[in-house]
């Protein structure tokens, strides 16, 4: 058990919480101002995320998807942060933020496409303000900062940028440089650190001696908030506040915020990872009792918003959507010309030659000749 999770286990007051583990509203907590329809939509997104995760893992095991980074346990925070955005806001996700991307407008098919090997899933459809997933850790942070700065410079007061990253990412230089710029240029950005307590096999207390990740914001003169990342309503509230402040800070307030969303990585780092090698799963039980999906479900059931019937409808709808997306993703086809087409705006002579060379080889030998085993 590490320092952070034991702090966490005390359900202490050092972070924003609204629901208790069973979905009851905590004393003194105020539920964010969301309509029944909104709450149900959010819940449906959670159910979708959970079932998408399960399906993706299973597809990966069948060899139908490449390495996948599961989000079970973290989807509550993902969904809530994206719900807190306005449509015109931009999202910078990591490889784990599937649900965050989807809620902000990315189709399920797009999520699956790169896992099938197609860049098409990284295209940014018109009107969808979601960047492709960032794989090199923390590199998105200065970029998200830059985009937010650009909106401010262009007087687009109604736009904020939300940037996701993990606990491990806080150790990279890019985290530091990005947040420092954010403070200096007072940019409308919300930095969400998804502290799932592990960076692959490295627990967060080996990542830094800092007591919290939130306190790192002080080094940049920006505000921070710690929130229970397994409590979707709390995450929504914290993020919504940060987004509002980014766009319209009060007197003496800065625009940027660092949100430390305390979570736990329920499963493996990715489908290639075996956590039993490096972590005893003492903590899992504790977190599973606070499962974000069950927790919101508890709340909605308590409030009479969610019935068994509705639950069934949601599950059916969600499964259908996932099924359709899987079929779409599996019917995608790649065009080898794509290798060359988008390197530059215009194809330079050498790339043109190379495209031609490949075309000729394909013509001569057929595409199947390319699927030799290399090793």
């Amino acid at each position, binding site marked *: 058990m590490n320092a952070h999770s034991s702090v966490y286990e005390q359900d202490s007051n050092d972070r924003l919480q609204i629901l208790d583990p069973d979905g009851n509203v905590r004393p003194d907590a105020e539920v964010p101002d969301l309509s029944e329809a909104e709450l149900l939509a959010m819940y449906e997104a959670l159910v979708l995320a959970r079932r998408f995760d399960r399906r993706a893992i299973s597809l990966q095991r069948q060899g139908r998807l490449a390495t996948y980074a599961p989000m079970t346990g973290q989807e509550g925070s993902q969904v809530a942060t994206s719900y807190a955005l306005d449509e015109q806001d931009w999202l910078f996700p990591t490889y784990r933020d599937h649900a965050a991307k989807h809620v902000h407008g990315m189709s399920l098919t797009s999520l699956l496409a790169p896992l099938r090997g197609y*860049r098409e899933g990284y295209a940014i*459809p018109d009107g969808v303000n979601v960047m492709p997933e960032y794989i090199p850790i923390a590199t998105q942070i200065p970029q998200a900062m830059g985009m937010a700065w*650009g909106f401010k*410079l262009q007087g687009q007061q109604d736009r904020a940028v939300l940037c996701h990253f993990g606990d491990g990412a806080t150790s990279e230089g*890019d985290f530091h440089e990005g947040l420092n710029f954010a403070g200096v240029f007072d940019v409308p950005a919300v930095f969400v650190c998804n502290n799932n307590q592990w960076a692959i096999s490295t627990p967060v207390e080996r990542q830094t001696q800092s007591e919290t990740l939130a306190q790192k914001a002080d080094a940049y003169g920006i505000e921070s908030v710690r929130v229970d990342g397994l409590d979707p309503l709390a995450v929504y509230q914290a993020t919504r506040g940060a987004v509002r402040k980014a766009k319209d800070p009060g007197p003496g307030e800065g625009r940027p915020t660092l949100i430390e969303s305390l979570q736990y990585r329920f499963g493996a780092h990715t489908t290639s990872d075996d956590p039993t090698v490096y972590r005893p799963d003492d903590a899992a039980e504790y977190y599973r009792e606070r499962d974000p999906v069950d927790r919101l479900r508890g709340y909605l059931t308590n409030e009479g918003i969610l019935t068994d019937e509705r639950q069934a409808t949601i599950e059916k709808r969600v499964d259908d959507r996932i099924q359709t997306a899987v079929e779409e993703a599996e019917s995608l086809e790649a065009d080898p010309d794509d290798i060359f087409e988008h*390197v530059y705006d215009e194809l330079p002579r050498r790339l043109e030659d190379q495209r031609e060379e490949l075309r000729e080889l394909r013509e001569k030998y057929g595409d199947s000749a390319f699927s030799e085993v290399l090793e």
Partner: protein
Amino acid sequence: MSSYADTVRENVEAAGDETVSVNQQELHDHSAETLSELTLVEAVADALYTEMSQDERIMVLGEDVGRNGGVFRATDALYDEFGDHRVVDTPLAEAGIVGASIGLALSGMRPVAEIQFMGFVYPAFDQLVSHASRLRSRTHGQSNAPLVVRMPYGGGIRAPEHHSESKEAFFVHEPGLKVVTPSTPYDAKGLLTAAIRDPDPVIFLEPKLIYRAFREEVPESSYELPLDEAAIRREGTDISVFTWGSMTRPTLVAAEELAEEGIDCEVVDLRSLSPLPIDTIVDSFEKTGRGAVVHEAPKTAGVGAEIAATIQEEALLYQEAPIQRIAGYDAHMPLHALEDFYLPQALRIKEGVRDAVEF
């Protein structure tokens, strides 16, 4: 020494008259133009000024580019004219500067980032090679990062360690980046203007050795030079000498001196290092049958290797001698007491050319 420098200047200007002007006329009619006599660094500042006046999206950011006008004054006067929102002193953090620029570009701005010296670009290397270069292909052509990263490069100015880097090959090897470098004030303005307007990320290398070496007439209004075309600075029949940036002038000096020995060099200033102007290289080589490349960077795996490899690939049957690489040695630039022994200069260029011609 100064008379030597004058010779250099005259030679270069003579050569320039013959060839650059051909180039200029195609793109730009001088007759109706107001012209200023500018140095290369002034032409850089002028390009920025002219473009910023016409396009509000353009901003300049970097270390000390604001009130100070850049450590070489390449952003002089911009701060006073355009204010601290468009001419921005950043914190001292190169990954931050380039990462921010990518984000700014994505937001609709047209950032021109300055890296104070090429030797300090490495902290930003990841942002450049993992992101700026890939955004277009990653998004299947749907997004892009139109940004310019300017940096003074090269040696010869008696600078401290790390201030004389010339590692253009690093950027040339990375797909998705364009790499250009001017060797004259006229080109500096035209290429930088084109770089700013280009939809792809451009690494703009400024030969600081010749920042103030000479003046040249530069139109006051804006004009673009193509980002992928070499300029033939001197026509010749015996050998093609390929070079760029700050090595162009010593190469031209060597060419004039070799002419007196009866060796007629064609001097090709590549200007664009990525994409390489392959056709011009090959055409020139096919005409002369002999070649040399002059660059400051270490020889091994430098851009000279690519040029030699390309020529033997495309024009082996014309090749009468090994293509000589007259380059920095495979060592780090020494501190300045030995700098002259490290950098190629007319002496070594002539020697290399003779080796190729006498082969």
